[in-house]
């Protein structure tokens, strides 16, 4: 069954222009999908439509077969789909880590004894067991985002959407967060929708879609998409720097294949013969 399904969905913020236009797309259970697009392309609107934070003007959105547009389903849908937002500071509701993680689970009426277990599970899943009684305010950005993810995990959703959750983090924090969601996807079978404009992060996904002006303009594996660099540029997206280097070297007459891995590219360059040191 599809975890998330959009059929001919349109949405506008009321100013006339469509933020999402005639969108058809689905995410299978257990899949890791990356959503790419420049600022204002409709990626975040897509995330908010998935669990009914925004209501579509037109079309049908369903989560595990349940329609999101029916009010009676909302409570169930939000248990299935958790969202982690961009700014770590805006998502903290309590001053102590364990209270913050418990918030969502308490709200859906999980029995008290079980909440304790869920907190332990969630903290372990994000690798922050030692921080159960820490002050949220004293955590780093990456740690705060991991606590936000733990808070979503405590609700035990089947789908996690990360809406540019790494945009405000430093490289180390970014890696922490992406590692955690990759592991949740691979080991726990969590369905993950990763919205990002860091091309490198999209590489972890099984499938990527590119959005522009509220429509999906490219679909495929991340590697497929990066190969179509000229098309990417028309949507204001740039290749990962390494892809650009591969292309330029090829244009300069060096026979290297496209790769996104530094070691592989170095190997390719080295195999072009015994280069002189310069």
């Amino acid at each position: 069954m599809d975890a998330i399904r959009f059929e001919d969905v349109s949405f506008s913020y009321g100013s006339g222009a469509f933020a999402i236009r005639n969108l058809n797309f689905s995410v299978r259970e257990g899949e890791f999908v990356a959503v790419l697009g420049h600022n204002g392309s409709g990626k975040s609107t897509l995330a908010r439509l998935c669990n009914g934070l925004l209501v579509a003007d037109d079309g049908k959105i369903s989560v595990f077969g349940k329609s999101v547009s029916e009010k009676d389903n909302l409570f169930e849908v939000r248990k299935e789909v958790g969202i982690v937002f961009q700014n770590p500071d805006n998502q903290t509701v309590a001053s102590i880590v364990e209270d913050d993680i418990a918030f969502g689970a308490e709200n859906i009426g999980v029995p008290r004894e079980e909440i304790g277990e869920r907190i332990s599970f969630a903290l372990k899943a994000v690798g922050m067991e030692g921080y159960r009684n820490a002050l949220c305010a004293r955590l780093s950005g990456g740690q705060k985002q991991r606590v936000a993810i733990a808070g979503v995990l405590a609700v035990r959703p089947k789908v996690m959407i990360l809406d540019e959750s790494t945009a405000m983090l430093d490289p180390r924090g970014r890696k922490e967060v992406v590692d955690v969601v990759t592991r949740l996807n691979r080991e726990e079978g969590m369905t993950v929708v990763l919205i990002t404009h860091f091309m490198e992060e999209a590489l972890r996904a099984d499938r990527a879609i590119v959005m522009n002006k509220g429509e999906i303009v490219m679909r495929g594996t991340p590697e497929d998409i990066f190969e179509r660099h000229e098309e990417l540029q028309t949507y204001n997206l740039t290749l990962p720097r390494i892809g650009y280097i591969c292309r330029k070297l090829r244009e300069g007459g060096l026979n290297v294949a496209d790769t996104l891995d530094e070691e592989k590219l170095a190997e390719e360059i080295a195999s072009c013969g015994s280069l002189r040191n310069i």
Partner: protein
Amino acid sequence: MRIVAEHLNYTYNPSSPFAAHALKDVSIVIEEGEFFGIIGHTGSGKSTFVQHLNGLLRLPSSMKKYKPKKPKKGESLPPAPLLKVGEFDLADKKTDFRALRRRVGMVFQYPEYQLFAETVQEDVAFGLKNFSDEKLTEDKIANAVRAALEIVGLSYDEVKDASPFELSGGQKRRVAIAGVIVTRPEVLVLDEPAAGLDPLGKKEIMELLHRLHGDWCKTVVIVSHDMDEIAENCSRVAVFSEGEVKYCMPPAELFRHAEELIALGLDVPLTAKLCLALERRGIRLDCDFTTEDFIRKTLVAVGEKDA
């Protein structure tokens, strides 16, 4: 304005259990006209350092209540901290900090969160009016705002009456930067100017900084996590780690220490990673770590082999 810092120390929450020694004996010279980069991971002291440059954080000796320590017998005091920005001596109580701030513009991280006025025009004019000693005529204000908005790449007539909150993310950031540069500071300090923007937005912001650098602001100082950005843009870089300056040199030299930087928990530019990987395969490229130079040198290496 030349910036000279010697033996700077700074402790947050001194004499409390949360005391954190953020700067330890930091000495840096930033020449006039540089495009200077500061890198270091979170908590390394880089923001603490830049906040000294316009006196947001002060040297103890510039505080009203400061009394110099007298050395006990047989004890020598550590060297006195010194911080000079152009003719301003920031260690001196008598320094006119308001005049200093007019000439050292500071753009914080996510400056768009500090937009507040009802129209773009008012928002950009705010600092200008505040810093001016006499009352400015409407014409003068409008001209200054127009020039500032135009250099950041916005059309004055299109955006002046818009609410800053209606603009897109990239536009908001430009308005916020316009609000700082409108006073024509000689030194412009930016904390993570491109963070959170999409790749195109990043590129546009860096282009904007190069446009400002020179005529508009003589010296530009950026704090960044993005090593590629640093390698491509900066004349020199200081590396902060645990409150100390570990390196201070041009990127072309700095990233030859790629392995040491990685050991400090820092990232290095892609070109430096590629150079390391090539070196392990017996190929040494002497490049300055900009993407274009890396490509050129690699191609030259291959060309020489064929010749």
